[in-house]
């Protein structure tokens, strides 16, 4: 990628920059809308007048949200979940991907293992048996119910094993010659060289844990133990206006249809995860400098 000095190159560059800028704007709009709504007076928000700029600017939705014990408590649970679950996912993914990245000649049972794992991506026993299992393991209402069942993300394993395989074979062969074992090769060679891949799967893992809400609702026995996404689900879900069954407090509906508070919660809920990205982004930018590795 060297600067091209031709005129057509410059036009192409300009077009690329323009296209990207346009795409970025289109992607930014909905979030800006949510942000603007969260900072607006609720009457303007309800009337659908707020587009990209707050009307009747106020911070009171944020004050309301921050003062809600549920919100901060569930955010704490989510952070705990991401930390514990993310580390476990990452460790298991690396451990599992390494042997599976070997060629069949080096590891005879590789294909069997791969299919054992891939099969779980496609087939699942469903909700009921999973629930019974968690119950029998006495993990209901515990954060482990949110972490252990998905401890090994097979999709990430497959991504990582492909990255591992794309590393030059000579490297590990040379290390073998020097008497390094599998463990040493994995930790000292593969892991440092796979920074972009590891950043990718870390991001997937973190986002996955942060966004997962259904397991929280099913496995937790009280709203006090909900992670943030489960809590938000109860806030943003569209309630049926059908005159059936359960009674529903009007105040809840009014709170819930207060778009500004909803928007503030959504924005705050996405904020931590958005903050993580720039840190991981570094790895997508740098990449492997093959030349220096080879020497």
């Amino acid at each position, binding site marked *: 990628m060297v600067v091209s000095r031709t005129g057509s190159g410059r036009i192409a560059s300009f077009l690329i920059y323009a296209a990207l800028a346009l795409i970025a704007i289109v992607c930014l709009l909905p979030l800006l809308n949510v942000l603007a709504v969260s900072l607006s007076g609720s009457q303007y928000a309800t009337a659908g007048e707020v587009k990209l700029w707050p009307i009747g600017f106020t911070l009171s939705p944020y004050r309301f949200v921050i003062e809600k014990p549920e919100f901060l408590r569930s955010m704490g649970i989510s952070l705990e979940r991401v930390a514990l679950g993310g580390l476990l996912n990452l460790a298991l993914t690396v451990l599992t991907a390494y042997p599976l990245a070997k060629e069949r000649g080096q590891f005879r049972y590789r294909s069997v293992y791969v299919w054992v794992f891939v099969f779980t991506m496609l087939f699942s026993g469903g909700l009921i048996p999973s629930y019974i299992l968690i119950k029998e393991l006495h993990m209901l209402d515990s954060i482990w119910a949110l972490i252990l069942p*998905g401890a090994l993300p097979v999709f990430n394993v497959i991504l990582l094993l492909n990255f591992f395989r794309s590393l030059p074979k000579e490297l590990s062969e040379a290390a073998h010659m020097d008497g390094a074992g599998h463990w040493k090769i994995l930790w000292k060679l593969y892991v440092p060289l796979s920074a972009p891949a590891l950043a990718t799967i870390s991001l997937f*893992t973190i986002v996955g844990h942060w966004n997962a809400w259904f*397991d929280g609702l*099913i496995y937790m026995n009280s709203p006090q133990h909900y992670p943030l996404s489960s809590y938000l689900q109860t806030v943003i879900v569209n309630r049926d206006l*059908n*005159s059936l069954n*359960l*009674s529903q*407090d009007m105040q*809840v509906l009014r709170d819930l249809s207060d778009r500004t508070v909803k928007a503030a919660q959504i924005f705050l809920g996405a904020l931590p995860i958005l903050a993580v990205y720039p840190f991981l982004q570094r790895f997508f930018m740098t990449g492997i400098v093959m030349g220096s590795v080879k020497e």
Partner: protein
Amino acid sequence: MNGSEGDDRMVRKWGSISLATTLVAAFVMAGCSNGNTKNEGAASASASPSASAPAPASASASAPASPVDADPLGKYEPGIELTTIRHTNSGMKFLNGDTLDDNIFTKGYQDELGVKVTNKWVVDDTQYAQKLNVSIVSGDLPDFFEVDAKQFQTLAESDSLADLTEAYDRYASELTKKIWGDKSEGKLDTAMYKGKLMALPINGGGLDDPDFIWIRKDWLDKLGLQGPKTMDDVMNIAVQFAAKDPDGNGKNDTYGLNMNKNIWDGYAGITGFLNGYGAYAYNPTNSQGTSTFWIKGADGSLQFADIQPEVKTALGKLQELFKQKAISPEWATMDGTKAAEFETSGKVGMHFGQFWNANWPLQDMKKLNPKADWAIYPLVSADGSAAKVQSIGYRPSRYIVVNSKLKTPEAVIKLLNFFMEKNYGATRDENYHIVTQGEEQVNTFPYAAIIGSYSDTNQNDYAAVTEAIKNGDPSGLNPTAKGYYDNLLSYKSGEMSMWWVDKTFGRQSAFEAMAQYKSDMNNYVFNEFYGSPTATMVERGSTLKDLEATVFTKIIMGAAPLDDFDRFVADWKSQGGDQITQEVNAWAQATH
């Protein structure tokens, strides 16, 4: 694609939305101090106890007509333990330090009845049905719990429920019996399975859920129109609202009639419009096609309300309105929340909906446009006679059931007696109802594991408040009604946030119109079928419901000719409807 794979899969299977939750009820309590409360009572009737309810049946509830050993409020020595499950929502307020696990009711159960009630789990309203289903199928059931009709049926069929016949006979207090009625009549009817009482209905009996016509009064005045007397007037108002720029902004951007894509909703649905033409269709979009409405035909047999010719007439009128641009072209893509925003932003001047519509969503509009004023009219008919209105909530839809494994099913009856006694009995105690904490009034009665209810609380409160205002004397009011009274006064002194109380309980309010409905029970049309969903309903119901929803929507939008209705009727019959009709009539014959 990432770590939430498993969740996604479950979600797809289970859907991400709520069970059908209703607004009909509970709203009234929220009004005490503008929404510090939560009420878990019955649909279509407030669960709020009320001083204007009938006086206690006897001076003391401990004078049972039943055998001596059966004391309705007798204490267990030594104490026993019961487990249950609860649903809650963010509107529920607690006294300092209280929780659903530990509050005045759990203490009362423990101290006075010797019953320790513990919650196996607590979940948000919207997730209750789902989590309960998982518990049921996993065999992880508490001792007693709340179910809907379908869950009740499934559990009863699988012999999972305790027979309450004897326990109710012997242990229900007179007060309880007076309100629940005898087994042979009233709402207990729907809780019978094979001749045995298998559940306690906790709602039903209410008459509060028919639609009204909500119209922008300021628009009527501006265009010099009168309130509707006939459905033709309704049509005319809708067309004028769309054509004559009632908001005076010089743009052709208003509509006459607001609708949302879930056409059977209690807000901006079509129920009231259909009632005006003598049509009583009902088949909610997000249900499984098993909650249908049946009326008595000329020959005395039960007939599916949705295939009657009156429905065709009404749909034709809606199509007419749509074609005249009196209904938004987007209605079929807007859900209730979206339709509400459309209306509160001043784009549309009329909708059909239930009494709580003033509280939500119309109250929101007062913030935006204080000049907007709404008038509430009782439904009108095509020929100007009083329209017969449809009540769906008259039949119970929620039940308390008892696990067949429980050795002491009568303990559950005692919990109910306890609630009734503390709220309506001779030893009535306000601490079990509403407690004032600082500025707030906190409802404590929703903490009860079983909530009993009167049906006509809202109406009684309306009458009492009206009377008190006339006399300027609120001293006879119960705390709830006193709350409304205070709110009405503060509205009159300019407190706009209490506008909805005026529209609900004040002059020319929803309950004034409701009183008109209630003046004669013949004004009401009730569902004649209140048995469990029949076999073919379960098997074909959702397919037939989809067919109906599609055809109705397309007809209204003019995307299908009105005569497609006839084809729908034929399709409905041939695809299982005839079978369902037979089953329903077989039920009717067995029951009556």
